[in-house]
């Protein structure tokens, strides 16, 4: 067999994985794209092992190791995604901007105006938002919204009500904030 065929298949799979990592918004879909990239690497390893007739079989053994590491990675990644969903009610990568650099104040000031059509949510975010209640550190940042963190507070207010409104629009999800809140309460108390 020509070695070029598997290598080209592997290169195409890798670029498809790159596209998925960059273009997808859902975190689980990004994890799937990472799996595609790992599989491209595995195919390369197997082909070079067969081509070079390695006495130690290092290519295929390394393929097995990569598969095991991918399993560990997916397990940990899904645990992180679930913790994220429990705290934020969303796993969309575009909306998880708590650690992003604060942009210039002229751009962040219209932030609280942005979710205005949702109702009066920005005026009392700390009391009603389940995400704010699940994170005690953020609840402290919410109750005095403007005084303590003048450049962080608009970003938080802008993020949370949108996720909350999105959870309320889906009928299947409408049960979720109350349920997760009651789940999180005993954990906070203990």
């Amino acid at each position, binding site marked *: 067999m020509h070695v070029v065929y598997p290598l080209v*298949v592997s290169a195409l799979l890798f*670029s498809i994985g790159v596209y998925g990592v960059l273009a997808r918004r859902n975190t689980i879909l990004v994890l799937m794209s990472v799996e595609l990239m790992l599989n491209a690497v595995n195919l390369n390893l197997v082909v070079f*092992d067969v081509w070079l007739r390695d006495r130690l079989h290092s290519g295929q053994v390394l393929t097995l190791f990569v598969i095991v590491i991918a399993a560990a990675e997916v397990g940990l990644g899904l645990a992180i995604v679930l913790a994220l969903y429990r705290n934020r009610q969303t796993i969309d990568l575009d909306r998880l901007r708590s650690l992003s650099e604060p942009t210039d104040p002229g751009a962040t000031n219209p932030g609280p105006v942005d979710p205005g059509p949702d109702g009066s949510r920005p005026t009392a975010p700390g009391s009603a938002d389940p995400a704010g209640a699940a994170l005690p550190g953020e609840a402290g940042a919410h109750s005095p919204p403007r005084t303590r963190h003048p450049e962080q507070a608009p970003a938080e207010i802008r993020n949370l009500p949108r996720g909350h409104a999105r959870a309320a629009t889906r009928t299947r999800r409408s049960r979720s904030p109350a349920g997760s809140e009651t789940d999180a309460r005993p954990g906070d108390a203990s």
Partner: protein
Amino acid sequence: MTEAPSYLSPTGQEIVFLLLGAVAVGSALLTVTTRQLVHAALWLVVCFGALAGCYLVLTAEFVAWVQVLIYVGAIVVLLLFGIMLTRAPIGRSADLDSSNRPAAVIVAIATAAVLVTVVVDGFRMAYVPLEPGGGSAGELGAAIFRNWVLPFEVLSVLLLAALIGAIVLSRTDIRGRE
């Protein structure tokens, strides 16, 4: 290694491999472009199955079965559980692609172009006559337990650490010190 036969007279192995590779690439494309989350996971199953077939054609039998067992059997099930537990919408959802999709298309096409041209240019003359038995369970087991024992054991420790980490992360009643 040996002199390569012409590309115009493919052997049966090459034809089977190319068909499986086309299935793998096509289902991978559908995985990253479909509008339904559950369908993405199911297309991923097709892609991994086709890749296991590719490993079989390349005489790596043990890797093929491990691929079926772990990727198709475990990882996709884990991903489906993740989709279920995050209450993802069943059916078509419009917001699965982020706003930087054109940039992603450009980067992916550039990556594919660079990789394919380099690989084709570098390995045009490489040819491997396939002989069965090179990747059987006996051969691989002897290789692992003779030459790769230490990485194997380290990997088992890593799996244990990942397991404990996943448990700690997903339980809500374990808190750090206040």
